[in-house]
């Protein structure tokens, strides 16, 4: 975990193109520090979260995406894709990772944004 935290924001990694992720779906980027889920919404926005549900660690990438939320496949918690926060009244969050889109190419930064201890 230490190593990721120290990474710089500008370490962008190209992870693929938009059409590699199903609309209202997600794919996984495997890293040495664990999986990152990359989601695509109906309006083609892309979000990346740690692939661990704040509840009991379920793989969020396997859930159903709706609006800009995902429903965890294990016990149906809902998590906001833009903030990583669990939908109230549940509490907790999944760490966010910066995403940048150029044309249809997607870039991901492995340095999680601050504010969420769930790593």
């Amino acid at each position, binding site marked *: 975990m230490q190593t990721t935290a120290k990474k710089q924001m500008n370490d962008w*990694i190209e*992870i*693929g193109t938009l059409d*590699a*992720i*199903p*609309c*209202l*779906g997600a*794919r*996984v*980027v*495997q*890293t*040495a*520090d664990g*999986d990152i889920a*990359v989601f695509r919404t*109906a309006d083609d926005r892309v979000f990346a979260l740690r692939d661990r549900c704040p509840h*009991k*660690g*379920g*793989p969020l990438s*396997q*859930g*159903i*995406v*709706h*609006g800009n939320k995902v*429903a965890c*496949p*294990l*016990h*149906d918690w809902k998590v906001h894709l833009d903030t990583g926060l669990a939908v*109230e*009244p549940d509490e907790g969050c999944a760490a966010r990772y910066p995403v940048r889109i150029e044309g249809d190419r997607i870039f991901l930064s*492995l340095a999680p944004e601050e504010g969420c201890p769930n790593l």
Partner: protein
Amino acid sequence: MKEKLVVVGNGMAGMRAVEELLKLAPDKYAITVFGAEPHPNYNRILLSPVLTGEKQFREILLNDDAWYAEHGITLHKGKTVVEIDRRRRLVKASDGTASTYDRLLLATGSNPFILPVPGKDLPGVIGFRDFADVETMLTAAKEYRHAVVIGGGLLGLEAANGLLKQGMKVTVIHLVDTLMERQLDRAAGRMLKKALEARGVHFRLEAKTQEIIGKQRVQGVRLVDGTELTADLVVMAVGIRPNFALAQATGIHCEKGIVVSDTLQTYDPRVYAVGECVQHRGLSYGLVAPLFEQAKVCANHLAELGYARYEGSITSTKLKITGIDLFSAGDFSGDDSTDEIVMQDAARGVYKKVVLDGNKIRGAVMYGDTLDGAWYFQMMRDGTDVSAFRERLLFGQAHLGDAGHGDIKQRINLMPDDAEICGCNGVCKGTIVKAIGEKKLFTLDEVRAHTKASSSCGSCTGLVEALLATTAGGDYSTATKKKPMCPCTDHSHDELRIAIRAQSLKTIPAVMQQLQWKTPNGCGKCRPALNFYLLTAWPGEYVDDNQSRFINERAHANIQKDGTYSVVPRIWGGETTPRELRSLAEIAEKYRVPTVHITGGQRIDFLGVKKETLPLIWGDLSQAGFVSGHAYGKAIRTVKTCVGSQWCRFGTQDSTTLGIQLEKMAWGAWTPHKFKLGVSGCPRNCAEATIKDFGVVCVDSGYELHVGGNGGVKVRVTDFLCRVKTPEEALEYCAAFLQLYREEAHYLERTAPWIERVGLAYVKQRVVENEAGRKELADRFHYSQKFSQDDPWAARAQGAERHEFIPLKMVG
């Protein structure tokens, strides 16, 4: 140009018809409504609690002014229609407002019957029908002291109770010796009288009104026997008369009400009528449940869908006086051909009577403990055979034990506070009750959000709803209120299924757009349901939407707690061979499967497989001749069999072969919830066929078919469907039953709750009695199977849906 619909009567039935119409065809009509009352539509039923002071008038509004505006409806409040010109298709109100129509809906309700006695027109003599009457009563209660209510029926007693609560001295005059004699027998009537007397109501039974006395205002009532009662207010509640004067004046055929057909059309097909003003097959109704059914059918015709018919209703009654529980339904007096089962406990103030005609319930009266009223009523409507639990019938549903038929709601009151309601989330009754009270929760969704109860497997939903009803206070109209499928829509499951076919909706976005979804792309509840409904409605045509499937069905494997998956290949009828077992063993070793488990469904489960490995394992399984077992799906699961007549010394038929045939016929089909089958070779029933969704028990003379069993959260024994002679028939009945379930059950409703909802009689009628219908159902099932018996595993092993199984990228 939109067609013009004019509605006369801004009451409960008329507006319900409009609401139903807006759901089906929101843009078809320009709608104009005339209402004689100066208010928008309100819940007339709840005038009683307004009179007692338990509710405010504004709390009982059903459609406020904004609602009419929002739906583009022109509302003429306080305008009474006085003339209909059918030739010019024109209606006119007393103030001259006029409107032309293409179709006209009459919903003028009824008028209180006013006894034709001298003095009936004096100020202070009223009926109990609308808010104006309630206002008159409330004012009178402030200024005067003595009230007389004429009529000891439902309405009269609710009026008497209200006036008493407002501080008046109330006497009820009733013509016969039993209160509410149309709903109650003598014993229950006596108990009711005693309870009301204890509250302070005075009664004059077997008393006839001769005259109402008074000069400027009413001063008293004189009875035929000469007695005079002081009265500053007289409420006449001696019955209602359908209000059809307007219809009759324009030449529409009326008898005791406006005569309508099963499509709610009058003799002039442009003119419809619903509600209390109507006479249908010789009957008029004075309760909302049947009127709402009429409204629904009427809307269906106005929308030109034309497949609904109204065939009359059976009604039940409850008295709405807080603290007095009373229920009555059907024929409660019986005759020579009926039996009565009666229980009376004067000390506890409980009385129950069920009238049986053979093994079926024909009527019920309950006083003091009405918890099981809905249950009796349901069985009465369904024609349920009660012989199996007849001796325990009056103890209620809670005493039937786990194998009983019926839902669990009624148990709730017997539970202590620490009883666990939601096993999934470990929530106790006390916690839920507390949250409902403290956080003012009113809906199931609110309870789910705040306590988590019923938010997971949902099997406790009924209990939570019952808790809501008892804690948050009963809603009088719950029985007819529909439940939206999820918070994204106002539509119920049934409405959606109907709309999908009626409006030829063929994709999820089309449904959401046409039916005005409230969220941009639904949620994890509605999308899988819609996907299933579309799949069954348009077999071969609809393209499955993977992103609307729960992960297990999307990945064709069950997700486990650590994010790995399990793989359960089909083992037809639970019978296998050494060769098959050898290949399974080799594959398990090759992929280092951590756990191999024999499942409860007679097959073998590989647990702990990584997602990327799934297509590889499937490829090998496919080579060895295995197909997916759909252990992950709302789909056909297993067919359990026993060895039957091939080996067993008791076996009567070849249960194993029949089981395999059933599985080969049915595998691959998607169903509302999972669907399990079992075939036992004799009544010893080693394959546990009587707790399966479809079970066969072989007997000497053939095959007994059973349906609606469940071995899960709440064990339910199957209902006996029928006996057939040949395996071919067993297959045909099974296909038909499956298809009926696929076409009509709600998504995530297993056969057990489905059958309890629609009634076994209905299933029998569709699958057993109607031979042509059965064959059509079976044909539709076989047709849709043409598109669903491709092995999903083989396809994915060959590369389909590749993105689902491999990471987007590996870094570091």
